[in-house]
């Protein structure tokens, strides 16, 4: 069997980035949520906010730690497996990645220490500032990483010398055509993902009946937040799609499963794209609708896959289905939030056990949508690393053999499969213990160590007395 180092390196990259992205998808939103809770507590002095902040900090600490260590893996992938890409594109992407390190990572890593362990050591105002700075750090991180990715998707502001890319205009490079849409759509997706986790945990807490005040607060905060952000996210997604139509038409054609371009194109609802036969099998499509939502006109012109050479098309089926999964989840989320708002208006939210149970299951929806969205945009970019300029096949490190990458991939798979379930189970355990002052009641020295947040709990108890 021939082992292709390029294909295996792609799988490896997908594996490590796929697991990694789950963490920012959660921590970016959670950091902002904790800063909000700390701020709300500072303003209102209501214990419910403090309890919630301490509860979520426990979970944040675990997920952030996992995010840091899985994130360190990422820049090394550029060097270990994609050294030709690194050599070609370093002059442009490296400062963006470096600025991420300079602005974001340090803010997060340093002030997280203060946030987790420093409540006794710094004044309350400084503690709130630490929470805000951690949140700012996570957002700044998203800014630079998405800027890098967006330049690779829609490269501008460069010149090519000897097959390498050199900067001409930094503003253009950072604010490349797809950047504003991608950033907004991604950060908003992260916020929505976190809000659904908060919704699910809130539902569980209410259903269980202990620490009701905290549970009810989580439910309501999440629903109100989603009532605004979920429609916004769908609108941002539409704008991002229009941007893709303009700058990455081949990707858009793969997303739509559109083989024959032209005017008044249909909208493919579902089907099976057959890359070899260049058509969709068993397809359900609505005539002319595609043109309507892509160009906002019944007979707008859209390019089809056949307008591009076969060796410049993405693996259509993956992109096609990933996109439909993302959109399907978006619609499902909308239905869940609308139902919740109606129940809230009728004052039946806390008593509708079926709905609370539904919210619990829905906690994972955001993560699936994020992975599906990421797959859509990254697989949709293929066969390019730098869209239209540098092929993935020309990016891989020349020294690697297939066996090398099989070995490293197996090790990454083994370690991630060991570490992620433990992390998840520890976070679930924190959820199961629940928020609130019950923490302080856990006897010390009963064989179970106090966790840092328990220590915070007792320290604030001291402060209150």
């Amino acid at each position, binding site marked *: 069997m021939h082992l292709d180092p390029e294909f295996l390196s792609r799988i490896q990259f997908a594996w490590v980035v796929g697991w990694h992205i789950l963490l920012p998808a959660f921590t970016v939103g959670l950091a902002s949520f904790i800063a909000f809770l700390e701020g709300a507590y500072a303003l209102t002095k209501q214990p419910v906010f403090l309890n919630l902040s301490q509860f979520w900090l426990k979970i944040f600490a675990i997920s952030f730690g996992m995010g840091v260590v899985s994130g360190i893996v990422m820049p090394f992938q550029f060097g270990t*497996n994609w050294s030709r890409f690194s050599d070609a594109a370093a002059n442009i992407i490296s400062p963006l990645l470096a600025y991420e390190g300079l602005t974001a990572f340090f803010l997060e890593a340093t002030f997280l*220490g203060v946030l987790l362990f420093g409540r006794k050591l710094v004044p309350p105002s400084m503690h709130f500032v630490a929470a805000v700075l951690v949140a700012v750090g996570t957002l700044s991180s998203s800014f630079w990483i998405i800027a890098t990715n967006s330049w690779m998707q829609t490269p501008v502001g460069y010149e090519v010398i000897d097959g390498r890319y050199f900067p001409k205009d930094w503003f253009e490079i950072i604010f490349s055509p797809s950047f504003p849409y991608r950033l907004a759509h991604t950060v908003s997706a992260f916020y929505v993902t976190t809000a659904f986790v908060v919704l699910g945990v809130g539902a569980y807490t209410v259903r269980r009946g202990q620490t009701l005040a905290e549970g009810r607060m989580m439910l309501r905060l999440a629903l109100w937040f989603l009532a605004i952000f979920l429609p916004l996210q769908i609108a941002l997604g539409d704008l991002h799609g229009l941007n893709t139509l303009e700058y990455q038409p081949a990707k858009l054609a793969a997303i739509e499963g559109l083989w024959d371009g032209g005017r008044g194109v249909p909208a493919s609802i579902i089907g099976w794209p057959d890359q070899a036969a260049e058509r969709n099998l068993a397809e359900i499509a609505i005539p002319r609708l595609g043109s309507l939502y892509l160009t906002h006109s019944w007979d707008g012109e859209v390019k089809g896959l056949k307008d591009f050479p076969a060796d410049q098309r993405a693996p259509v089926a993956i992109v096609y289905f990933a996109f439909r999964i993302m959109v399907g989840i978006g619609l499902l989320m909308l239905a869940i939030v609308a139902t919740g708002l109606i129940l809230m208006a009728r004052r039946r939210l806390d008593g509708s056990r079926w709905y609370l149970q539904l919210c619990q299951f829905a906690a994972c929806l955001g993560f699936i949508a994020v992975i599906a969205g990421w797959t859509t945009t990254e697989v949709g970019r293929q066969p390019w690393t730098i869209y239209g300029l540098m092929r993935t096949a020309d990016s891989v490190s020349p020294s690697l053999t297939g066996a090398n990458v099989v070995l490293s991939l197996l090790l990454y798979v083994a370690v991630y499969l060991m570490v992620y379930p433990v992390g998840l189970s520890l976070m679930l355990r924190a959820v199961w213990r629940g928020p609130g002052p019950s923490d302080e009641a856990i006897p010390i020295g009963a064989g179970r160590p106090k966790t840092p947040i328990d220590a915070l709990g007792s320290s604030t108890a001291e402060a209150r007395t």
Partner: protein
Amino acid sequence: MTPTLDLVPIWTVILGLGVFFYVALDGFDLGVGMLYNFAPDRRARDLIMNSIAPIWDGNETWLILGSVGLLAAFPVAFAIIIPAVYFPILLMLLALIFRGLAFEFRFRDAEHRTLWDHGFAAGSAIATFAQGVILGAFIQGFQVEGRQFVGGSFDCFTPFSIFTGIALMFGYALLGAGWLVIKTEGPLQDWARALGRRALIGTCAAVAIVSLWTPIIDAPVAARWFSWPDIAWLSPVPLITLGLAWYAWRSLNNRSEYAPFVAALGLFVMSYLGIAISLWPMIVPGHFTLEQAAASQSTEAFLLVGTLVLLPVILVYTAWSYWVFRGKVRSDIGYH
């Protein structure tokens, strides 16, 4: 073309400092991780871990800055060196994952505490060893064609690089012992001093052997150090190193609290200088000088603007976070 300011020396200094900060900062907490395995009891392990819990992820962040800084300042060096040390990098990353998560998991996953204890110690040891291998392979140089590494992925494992791997384990253990002397008191501090003495003996032996081994396998290095008048100019490097080794030994045996750590740092500075002198001005030994490997002026300038503003800020708040957690490690702050 108008002559412009040459930024390469500035970036050389920044990257040199960045890598050194990583080695010094993550060095001591990796060292603490290795010593952790020898801790007498659980209370000691808790204290040892708490002595680095609030700062380790900040320390590890320098690794990102070091790698991305290399990519930014000397891209071709990054594109050659990193694939050449494919497996040491893989080992280091996986070890750092285990180690990093052990901090969080150990205290929450009581059923598997032993597993995470071992994960923490073994992760620290393997990550250190892998970094040492990378260092050794880097000193030895790589097989290069054009702008790419073309050797095999296992070429980096040589007797020399395995030895530098072990050498770095002693070095980091010494730094870690120095840190624990600062952060602990009583019997635990005595324990740290005792381990520090062993690590110091190992470190000194390793530095001596690497210092002799390198010129033997590498003629240009030999020419640099042993030709007249260079030998006179460079003689302070080994002499100061010797002095520092003596000072470290003395401070580990008397009651000084900070001197062992400072002396260990001094030994690292001197070893680092020694390597820099041996390789100067190459960034990919035998193939690319710093000037040849440098990024475009625009890239260097664009990143320099932000770095000159942000790096001092980072140093200030890193210092501040160390200040917040200063003094002996308390059993009521952090995990317990």
